[in-house]
């Protein structure tokens, strides 16, 4: 606060107060008036002095002090301002302000003396720096530029720093106003320093709205921040506004135009127009309008999405037109990836890279690349292609002489940014040679050639590593690496040795550098035929004597190409005996055998192959074989494509083994081919394209000693066995009433097509026109099968057949390759009259014998029988306890009980005819060895055999062991009666109660047993039926012995065990003649038919 004091001079004419004491009232009144006058004078004096001194500074060096002038002060008033300090200094001013130098901190007394005509008015002030305001001068904008393309304002102003005495911080405040109503859109501070001299400052601001959309104004003010200044610091006044505006033409336009923007940014579009805009849209999306000055509108897009190649269209629609612009939203270039620099020829460096993430910007907005090499300072630019692919991102850089290390920087740039990638390479280690061309081959000799090629590039300073691929048609691929010194003229030459004579080679080459980086691509192939050399080996020879034993036929095989070493022109055949050699003939090449007429001396035959260069070493073979007495013929079967032969190692065999083979059906000399096996081998696989399945071949294994061969083994074999193609030819040699004898012939070897393993013989009952054996393998029960594995057996007798019956016979051969075709025949057996007679006589005889034996037994045991069955019954008449009236007892004779009459024994004939299997022949299906031994028929211990029955047996010359398994089925079976008369079934309980193995009365009947049931089942059934069975329905039997006593309380339908009555069943065991049987019609009555269970009937 400024302390201001006013000091007034008392006027000199003012009366002394001592004079005012005359009268008190008058004096008091007078005094009051005077006082009032004085007060008025004082006030008038006070109003005339300067007051309200204020000081400001804008440069800290000069204070501009101003004060308020008295009201009466007019033109011509002079003020004297004096500063009371050490050096009293005064300043006169005609204005109410004056500039004084800045005062030191502390209070300073300032007197302002108003000088005027009537006197002086002095005002005193105390002035301190704290009371001074620092208000910088209003800044002035030197320039305001608008960059409409980037919507950027560039502001330029002078800080007038020269006015300040020392270094100061200055804060600038800039305001941006938009539209006609001056909306402040930006207020920003900008800090600078002043350092005693004028400096022009720049500041730029990018508008979010295109500058064309609305007028923009800029103002600026400043604030000097002097920490040493203790006064009041204030902002300067705002500078005058500078305006920028786009002067639109009459056409409607949309801004910004063709702008490239980062994906995800926010952007404002505006339409500067005179027409009313109805709507706006970006792509297909409508946007709300923001109204600007006049009809101008804008839209704001947030988080813009990536554009298509042709950009994103932003349009504003008026009533009759659409105006628009295109925005390109994309990405800045990604860091170039996989930057790689290499050279093909050490002349030019090729740098390739992957651009990374697509920028979505194409055409002029696409990324441009610059490859800069820092050591040389050279650079190359990537020429834009319209539709670049990843492969096309490459730049060529010319190599600098004597520079091997290159430091490349690849700069990528697009309107949204830039990126870079660097690589440091030693280019001699990054050589990727081009394809070798102009391959040429020249002979050195038959096993070596020179290869020359052209490899573009200057490789004089490095060594090349090249790979030569050598291919022949027969051998495996070979790769040879060669290291050669690089040359300047691009021509290279190497020698390739260790080749085979007269061989077509295919060469191709690829190269790299010794410090391997990449192989070049393979060159084109170059074929070359090496020159001929003498054959390296003699031909593989064999010899055979002609069938008449007079001529020796020499065979040899053509030399393989790798041994012939050229084109074989002819063969020389010579023979020697006791070191005397005789050249016999020269055979031209296509012929590979020679026939020599030799005696039985042991000659050594030599064969020599000749080509244009020379002759091969001779191949020698002795003309005679070493005899071998111990020779067996063996069999072998191959594996489909070959046949394996093995033998034991024989140290005596000094030269190769030879296996020769031929088709066994060929005539002698039989030779298809031969094979030599080293003498240390013990096995070999003989394979040939000539082998055919189902063809019999003869194989001969020869051992070799001193060029003489000895036959060691003779083998017949098939490469693969097949089924015979013909059926065995068989005939019926003999036919009887119950058997047929069949005889067959061998099948020829050519038609056998395998080793014969046996014959299958099928037979069944059947007529020619009605019966056919169908499905032989289907296991039909009515077909009997006989497997004949004894190959020496040529006949077969089929026994136990029915007389006068037609049989269908089928015979087929089989090998391991399968079953051959079948041959069938129908045979009718003869009538069996002897059997009929026997069948009649035997039962009669048996019945007689049984009757006699029974009679004898009954007679001899009559007392026992009487005691057992007819004991004496006490006469009740003798019983006194029972006092029967005599008249009653005497008058009624039928009331007598247990009157013992003589008992006539019954004749019971038990027909023991067969085992539990009704027809053995019928069940003999699966195994051909199911014949039954005759002794098995007596295996049933409890059977009372009256007439023994022998089951039919198929006679065989070589019975098969194990056939006695069927023996368990030979039991006494009571048959045939039930087929005519149904037996009276015994209650189940009664059956169980009868002990099977008991020695009592045995059943005379047997329930039918299914033929297909096994032996055990048959036995079970037998056990169940082992109890007593009535022989017939007694109701149906009319011939009951009239004298047989009956138990009066016995059931009339059953016959109880122990009954003294029996039935003479003999009359029913021989049934009436079956008139419907076709067999009977055909061949008359047959006793054997009676015993058969005939399904056909």
């Amino acid at each position: 606060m400024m302390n201001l004091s006013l000091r007034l001079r008392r006027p000199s004419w003012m009366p002394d107060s001592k004079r005012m004491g005359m009268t008190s009232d008058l004096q008091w009144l007078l005094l009051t008036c005077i006082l009032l006058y004085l007060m008025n004078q004082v006030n008038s004096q006070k109003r005339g002095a300067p007051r309200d001194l204020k000081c400001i500074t804008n440069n800290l060096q000069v204070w501009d002090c101003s004060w308020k002038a008295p009201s009466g002060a007019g033109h011509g008033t002079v003020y004297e301002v004096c500063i009371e300090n050490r050096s009293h200094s005064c300043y006169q001013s005609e204005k109410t302000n004056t500039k004084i130098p800045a005062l030191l901190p502390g209070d300073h007394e300032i007197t302002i003396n108003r000088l005027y005509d009537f006197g002086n008015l002095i005002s005193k002030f105390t002035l301190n720096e704290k009371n001074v305001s620092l208000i910088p001068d209003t800044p002035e904008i030197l320039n305001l530029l608008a960059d409409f393309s980037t919507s950027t304002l560039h502001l330029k102003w002078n800080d007038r720093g020269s006015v300040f005495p020392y270094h100061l911080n200055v804060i600038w405040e800039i305001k941006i106003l938009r539209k006609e109503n001056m909306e402040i859109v930006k207020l920003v501070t900008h800090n600078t320093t002043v350092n005693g001299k004028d400096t022009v400052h720049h500041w730029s601001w990018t508008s979010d709205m295109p500058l064309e959309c609305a007028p923009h104004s800029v103002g600026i003010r400043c604030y000097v921040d002097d920490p040493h200044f203790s006064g009041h610091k204030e902002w300067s006044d705002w500078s005058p506004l500078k305006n920028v505006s786009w002067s639109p033409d009459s056409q409607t336009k949309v801004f910004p135009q063709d702008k490239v923007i980062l994906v995800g940014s926010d952007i404002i579009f505006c339409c500067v127009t005179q027409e009313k805009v109805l709507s706006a849209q970006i792509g297909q999306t409508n946007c709300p309008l923001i109204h600007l000055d006049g009809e101008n509108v804008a839209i704001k897009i947030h988080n813009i999405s990536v554009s298509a190649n042709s950009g994103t269209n932003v349009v504003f629609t008026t009533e009759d037109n659409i105006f628009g612009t295109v925005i390109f939203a994309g990405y800045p270039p990604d860091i170039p990836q996989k930057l790689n620099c290499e050279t093909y020829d050490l002349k030019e460096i090729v740098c390739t890279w992957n651009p990374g993430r697509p920028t979505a910007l194409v055409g002029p907005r696409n990324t441009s690349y610059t490859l800069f090499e820092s050591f040389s300072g050279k650079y190359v630019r990537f020429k834009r292609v319209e539709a670049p692919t990843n492969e096309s991102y490459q730049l060529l850089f010319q190599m600098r002489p004597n520079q091997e290390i290159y430091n490349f920087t690849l700069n990528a740039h697009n309107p949204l940014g830039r990126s870079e990638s660097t690589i440091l390479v030693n280019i001699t280690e990054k050589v990727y040679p081009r394809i070798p061309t102009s391959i040429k081959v020249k002979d050195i000799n038959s096993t070596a050639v020179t290869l020359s090629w052209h490899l573009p590039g200057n490789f004089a300073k490095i060594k090349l590593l090249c790979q030569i691929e050598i291919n022949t048609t027969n051998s495996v691929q070979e790769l040879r690496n060669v290291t050669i010194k690089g040359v300047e003229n691009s021509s290279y030459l190497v020698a390739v040795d260790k080749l085979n004579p007269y061989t077509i080679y295919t060469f191709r080459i690829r190269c790299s550098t010794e410090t391997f980086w990449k192989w070049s691509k393979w060159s084109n192939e170059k074929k070359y035929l090496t020159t001929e050399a003498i054959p390296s080996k003699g031909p593989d020879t064999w010899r055979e004597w002609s069938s008449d034993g007079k001529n020796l036929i020499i065979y040899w095989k053509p030399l393989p190409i790798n041994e012939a070493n050229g084109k074989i022109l002819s063969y020389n055949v010579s023979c020697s005996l006791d070191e005397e050699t005789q050249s016999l003939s020269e055979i031209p090449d296509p012929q590979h055998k020679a026939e020599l007429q030799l005696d039985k001396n042991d000659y050594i035959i030599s064969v020599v192959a000749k080509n244009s260069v020379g002759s091969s070493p001779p191949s020698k073979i002795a003309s005679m074989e070493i005899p071998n007495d111990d020779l067996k013929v063996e069999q072998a079967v191959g594996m489909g494509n070959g046949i394996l032969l093995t033998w034991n190692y024989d140290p005596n065999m000094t030269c190769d083994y030879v296996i020769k083979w031929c088709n066994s059906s060929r005539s002698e000399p039989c030779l298809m081919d031969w094979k030599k096996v080293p003498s240390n081998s013990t096995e070999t696989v003989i394979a040939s394209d000539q082998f055919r399945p189902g063809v019999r071949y003869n194989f001969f294994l020869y051992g070799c000693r001193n060029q003489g061969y000895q036959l060691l083994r003779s083998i017949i074999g098939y490469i693969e066995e097949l089924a015979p193609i013909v059926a065995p030819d068989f005939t019926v040699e003999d036919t009887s009433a119950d058997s047929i004898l069949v005889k067959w012939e061998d099948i020829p070897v050519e038609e056998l097509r395998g080793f014969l393993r046996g014959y299958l013989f099928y037979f069944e009952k059947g007529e020619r026109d009605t019966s056919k054996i169908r499905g032989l393998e289907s296991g039909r029960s009515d077909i009997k099968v006989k497997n004949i594995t004894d190959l020496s057996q040529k006949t077969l007798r089929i026994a136990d057949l029915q007389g006068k019956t037609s049989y269908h016979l089928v015979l087929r051969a089989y090998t391991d390759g399968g079953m051959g075709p079948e041959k069938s025949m129908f045979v009718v057996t003869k009538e069996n009259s002897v059997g009929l007679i026997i069948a009649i006589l035997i039962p009669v005889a048996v019945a007689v014998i049984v009757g006699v034996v029974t009679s004898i037994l009954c007679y001899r045991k009559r007392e026992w029988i009487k005691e057992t069955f007819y004991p004496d019954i006490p006469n009740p008449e003798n019983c006194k306890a029972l006092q029967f009236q005599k008249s009653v007892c005497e008058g009624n004779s039928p009331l007598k009980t247990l009157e013992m009459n003589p008992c006539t024994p019954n004749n019971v004939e038990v027909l023991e005819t067969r085992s539990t299997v009704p027809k053995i022949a019928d069940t003999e299906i699966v195994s051909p060895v199911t014949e039954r031994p005759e002794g098995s028929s007596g295996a049933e211990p409890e059977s009372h055999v009256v007439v023994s029955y022998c089951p039919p047996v198929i006679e065989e010359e070589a019975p098969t062991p194990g056939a006695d398994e069927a023996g368990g089925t030979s039991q006494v079976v009571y048959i045939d009666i039930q087929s005519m008369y149904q037996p009276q079934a015994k209650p189940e309980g009664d059956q169980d109660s009868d002990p099977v193995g008991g020695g009592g009365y045995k059943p005379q009947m047997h329930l039918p047993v299914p033929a297909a049931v096994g032996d055990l089942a048959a036995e079970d059934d037998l056990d169940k039926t082992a109890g007593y069975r009535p022989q017939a329905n007694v109701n149906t039997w009319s011939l009951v012995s009239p004298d047989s006593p009956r138990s009066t309380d016995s059931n009339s339908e059953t016959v109880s065990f122990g009954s003294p009555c029996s039935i003479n069943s003999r009359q029913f065991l021989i049934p009436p003649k079956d008139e419907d049987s076709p067999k009977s019609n055909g061949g008359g009555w047959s006793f054997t038919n009676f015993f058969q269970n005939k399904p056909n009937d």
Partner: protein
Amino acid sequence: MKVLAAGVVPLLLVLHWKHGAGSPLPITPVNATCATRHPCHSNLMNQIRNQLAQLNGSANALFILYYTAQGEPFPNNLDKLCGPNVTDFPPFHANGTEKTRLVELYRIIAYLGASLGNITRDQKVLNPNALSLHSKLNATADIMRGLLSNVLCRLCNKYHVAHVDVAYGPDTSGKDVFQKKKLGCQLLGKYKQVIAVVAQAF
């Protein structure tokens, strides 16, 4: 002689001077030399008709291909963005004489050819990957060149017209991308409309 030559020749020139001398004549005088670079085809009118039919047949496809490649909202605002309101397009009178029609056709094809050149150039920069559009534009321009040559041959051979004044559309090179798109679309819309009339007239 020199004096005579120096005085008579200018006099004759002055006597024969008339308005338009020195500027390209719309129609060559009958006796003027009418030379074509290549011998004209024997059946020119047929060729012209075929070429017009070919252009007419492909114009719509080119139009669709073009506005589709420009992105939205072009396909949905064809009336305002691709309307055939090309103000300086050469006129065509279908009921005129053959000579008149040929002259007008020449002007139209020349105009279209130049405009197609602009469009092709712009689209190669703007849509470098729209290869089918480029191919169609090039094919159309090729046919137009052949048609122009044939029309010129016909005019020259039959009507002895060696030169026809032509006008070209606005150069789009300095315009913004949206203007290029819009002008191209309008031009192709106009082309589609006009070529149908012209093809019908021949």
